[in-house]
Every structure is written in C-alpha cells, then in structure tokens.
C-alpha cells in the first residue's frame, strides 16, 4: 500500500536529462497520452517530477518513520502529563493521547514498509539553497524588532536574487531597493501598518 503507484521513475537519469533541453522538446505528445485514469495519473506525476532530485534510500525512510514514532511517543507522554480521563469523563489529555497512539501505530507501519517506499527525495547540494533561504528569513525576523523592516527586507531580496537565483549584481541591488521602496509605500505610507520601520 505504500509503494507509490504513480511514482517517479526509479532511474533519475531521465528526469535530469530533461532539464537540459528546452521543455518543449520533451512534450508528452511524442508518446501517446494514456487514456485510463490510472495511466493519466502516472503521466501527470512524471510531468510534475521532471526536475526533482532522486528518491532517498531505505535508511532515510527508516529515520523518517522513527521520527514519526518519536513524535507519537512524545505526544502520549505529554498527554499523560495532562488529565487523560476515561471514556465517561474525557479530560484535557484524552484526545492528545488518542492522537499520539495513532501516530505511534502509523509510524511503526511506516518502519515496516520503509523498504518499499520511494517517495522521499534525497537531500542534494541544492538543498543548501533552502537552508540559505530559511537563514535569510530568520535574520529578517531577528532584526526586524531592532532596526525595522527596511534593511532586513532588502537583505532577504538581495540574497535570494544574487545567491539563490544567480541574478547579476546590478539587477539584484536595484530590484531589492525598488521592492523595499514599494513595500514601504504600500504598507507604511498607504496602509499605515504598524510594522517596525526605520524611517
């Protein structure tokens, strides 16, 4: 039940090769479009997964499943700290307890099926882009209370353009300044949102 029917192809080569050619050249019309609902789903999946990284290995799937078990166990522990009550007199902990038990059971099922799962993606070099993107947002929220939103916002846009999007220096600088100016006009000048601001 966990093997993904419409999953991406086991060999990722096809997916990566597709990225190098113009998208139009690999149109699905070269192969016949399937007529059954099932076949269509697979075609749809392949289209959506074309540019994605390869799937993760079984070890990663076990770790994911164990994380679910751990979350469930922590929930059960937390629920026991509240009042679990009884069916006749449900307490604050009853519902979290039930949810925690369900999570543990589902997590154990995921452990059992970990070998047959192929829908988690591997972390690749590109995953660092996501870490960097998140870091820029954390810096934004950490600085906003101290120096207002303008400089952190410009930084976020600049980092995303120059380092995550590989745009040119000039475009990155000009766009980030223009975007912040636009935001200032809309949110501070026009809507007078009380967001912390420097000017």
């Amino acid at each position, binding site marked *: *039940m966990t093997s*993904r029917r419409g999953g991406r192809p086991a060999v990722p080569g096809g997916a990566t090769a597709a990225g190098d050619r*113009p998208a139009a050249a690999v*149109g699905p019309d070269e192969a016949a*479009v399937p007529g059954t609902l099932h076949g269509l789903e697979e075609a749809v999946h392949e289209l959506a997964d074309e540019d994605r990284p390869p799937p993760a290995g079984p070890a990663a799937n076990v770790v994911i499943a164990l994380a679910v078990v751990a979350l469930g166990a922590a929930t059960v522990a937390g629920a026991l700290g509240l009042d679990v009550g009884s069916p006749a007199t449900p*307490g604050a902990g009853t519902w979290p307890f039930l949810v925690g038990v369900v999570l543990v059971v589902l997590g154990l099922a995921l452990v059992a099926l970990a070998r047959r799962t192929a829908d988690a993606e591997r972390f690749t070099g590109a995953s660092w882009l*996501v870490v960097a993107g998140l870091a820029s947002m954390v810096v*934004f*929220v950490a600085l906003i209370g101290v120096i207002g939103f303008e400089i952190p916002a410009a930084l976020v846009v600049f980092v995303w353009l120059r380092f995550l*999007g590989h745009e040119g220096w000039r475009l990155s600088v000009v766009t980030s300044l223009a975007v912040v100016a636009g935001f200032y006009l809309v949110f501070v000048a026009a809507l007078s949102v009380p967001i912390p601001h420097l000017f």
Partner: protein
Amino acid sequence: MDLSPVLDGFGVVLEPTNLLYCLIGVVIGMLIGVLPGLGPAATIAILLPLTFGIEPVTAIIMLAGIFYGAQYGGTITSVLLRLPGEASSVVTVFDGHALARQGKAGTALGIAAIGSFVGGTVSIVALSIVAPVVAGFALDFGPPEYTALALLGILLVSTVSSGDRLKAVVAASIGLLLATVGRDGFTGAERFTFGSLDLADGLDFVPIAMGLFGLGEILHNLEERHRAVQAPAKVANVWPSRADLRRSSGAIGRGSVLGFLLGILPGGGATLSSLAAYALEKRRSKTPERFGRGAVEGVAAPETANNAAATSSFIPLLTLGIPANATMAVIFGALLIQGVTPGPQLVSEDPELFWGVVNSMYVGNILLLVMSIPLVGVFVRILRVRATVLAPITVLITLVGVYTVRNNVFDIVLVIAFGALGYLMKKLGFDPGPLVLAFVLGSLLEESLRRSLLLFGGDPTGFLTRPISGTLLALFLVVALLPLVRPLVRAALGRRRAPAPTDTHHPDHKELV
C-alpha cells in the same frame, strides 16, 4: 423552494463594493495563479491578510474570486509554458501545449475560458438547488454525527492526496495534534504550550496555511533545476473557431456534470475531475489518437470539469462545515477568522451571506471570462519575468503579510517555522494538505468526540447505534481498510490486471497546493 433569499443574494452581490472586490479577487488570483508552482491553496493562503478588515460577505466574495482566478491562471502557464501552475491544470498541458506549438495558443486559452465559464455556471445552478437540501438534512446532526463526518472527511482527503497514503494520514494526525496546542476549551488546562504566552491562545491558522502552502512551496521550488524556459508563444486570436466550439461542446457538457459530481466528494475536487474528464473524452472519442497532439476537447474537458468541481466543492463546506480539500480548508479558516462558522445553519440563519457568496460566483465567472481574454497579453508579460525574481517578492509579501494580520512579530516566526516544515514534508513525501485540513477541523472533532462520549456515558458503541453516525463510521472503516484488503483480493483474482476506467477510489494524484 423560496426564491426571495436567492434574489436578495443578488442584491448583495450587485452592491458596488462587492463587485469591486470580486473583480480585485479575480485579477489578483489570476496574477498570482500564473506564477508556476503556486496553486490555489497557496495563492489564497498568501493573500489571506488582504481580506481582514473588510466585511465578511465582501471578504468571502473576494476569496472566491481569488480562487477561480488562480484556477484559470494555472491554465495559462500550462498552455504557454508547459508549466502547470497547479495540479488541476496538469492534464491541460498535454493538448494545450501541443496547440500552442501549432500556433493555436489563443484557441486553447479561449476554449479553456469558455469551458470554465460554462462548467462554473452549471455547477452554481446545481449548487443552488442541492445545497439547501443537504443543509436541511444536516440540521439535526448532533456531536456523534459531526465526529463521524469529520473523521471521514479527513480520511478521504488523506487517501486521495499525493504520494503515500499512510504518510498523508500521519500529516493529518499532526494537524490534529497542532490543533490541541493552547488552552483546552473544556477544562482550561494549558496543553503543549511549553510555558509560552504566545502559544497559550493556540496556534493561529494564517501562519500555518501561509507557511506550509506558501513558503513551503517556494522553498521546495528552490531545489528545482531551472529549466530553460523559452519565451512564451505569441497569443493571437483568442476566439475559438466555430468548428472548435462544435467539436468541444460535448466535452464541455460532460465535463460540467462530471466535475460537479466529483467536486462534491471529499478529496475529489478539481484535480481528480480534470483527470476523469480527460480520460472520459479520450475514451469516447472516435479519433483518440488526436489526444496529446492538440485536440481542443483535451483542453475543454479538463478545464470545464476543474472549474465545475471547484464550485461544487463549496457544497460540503457551506452546508456541512466540512472542507472537501486543502483549498476549501484555507477558505474555511478564512471564514472562521471572519466570525462565520460554516455549517447547516448558515443557509437559514445567515441567508444574505450564503446567497451573497453563491451568487457572487456567477459574477466571478462572468468577470473571469471577460477579464481573461483581454488580459492574456499582461499574463504573458508576467511570465517573461523570471521565477528567480518573483520568488523573493512572494517571500517578502508572505513575511510582511502575516505580520499585518495581528501586528505580531511572533506570527512571522511561526510562518518561517511552518515554511520549513512545509518544505520538509514535501521533500519527505508528506502532503501538507491533510495537515491543514485536519488542523482546521481539529477542535471541532475533539469537541464533538468529547460531547458524544459524555452523551453516551462513556460507551463508544453509541456511535454505531445512531443510524447516520453508524453509516459514516462504517464508510470510514471501509475506506481505511480497503488498502489492506485490496492486495489480498488482487492476489485471489490472480494477476489479471483489468483496465480501470472507474478506478476513482484510490487515485494518489498530485495535489500541488
């Protein structure tokens, strides 16, 4: 049927403010919907802050406008760039992009707009008739029925989500868990707040939806290799020819009915119906080999069906208070924030709101038809702006937008945290849709369960002896156990693999929210 509240509803829609907000909603929805990778749920989530501080009716009219706009926006990228903006337009790519390469992009977009309009309109008429009936039926639902209904709704949405169904149920459970954070409504006990004052009132819906759908999606797209996106095809002559219209009229008719029916089912929604409508047309066609090579029916059918389904998926939300898919969960959350609790009493107690929203859909559809064709040029120009430039702007809109809802910096922290969670979930094969849906239904579910248990004096068999809750729970068990039973049945039948045209009960289609 008493028609006067329906007519009053038109009065509400035709107020200039409401018309204006409907227009704004449709246009903004199309603009954001054009951005590849951001589907309707993400679009609505990112634009949620816009709707605060306006009247509930107006806010919902605008949200509904954003919703159809986003639907159509996805079609534009499917046809012109072969980049579906959302899951329900993925099938449109096959014939839509083929048409575009033959220089008939205008025809594809025009037929999609007309199909969407017809599908939407048929669906609204049917909704106006069906919704009050369903609501009347559900009026005497008690806590046990709501418990069973909410459980079934969450399970159905999880089973048709993308990827692994087990993982989707895990996501839903996490949503239920997140809903318990904060002060318990019955006893006042603080649950899972870890002593934080910010968490004492519970987690707010807006940062969760904006983080999981909006930021999560953008972060997930960062990893994608940037395709050499060619300049979109020139769009000329948007009006389809008579021959094209004649050829696709059957597809539009069947797509409307199929879309309406599938849209009502929890978890069905726009994506499934677009797939089913395409499959149906190909099967019926005398020349199935044209499909995939630029058949107009291959654009008309899915686009009609997804719009009809998008409209009819409002039925479970407005009459039962149970959202049928992730997008409806976002609209549900928005309604709750406006102080409107959708449910069976909505039609009778707040007819102005109910019929105002329903009738605004006619206006929304007309606006969509009128705006989409002349605005195609504008959208093509937006598509020329690179995704690397649009992404940071969307990020900033999210970060600043979430702040404006409650003027609270903690909400920015939350949206980033849920953005990270949304990215990880998508990365690891967990669909965030069921989480958001379960989060929205979590407190209703817990409350009904606890009330039912008190009602039954602690005897859980009470659920099974009431006819409606018993039936719903039996259905729940069937859906839950089906995946366990099916391999056994299949083994018993030998490995005979029948073609599965009616294979609608276990599609793990992609819900690109």
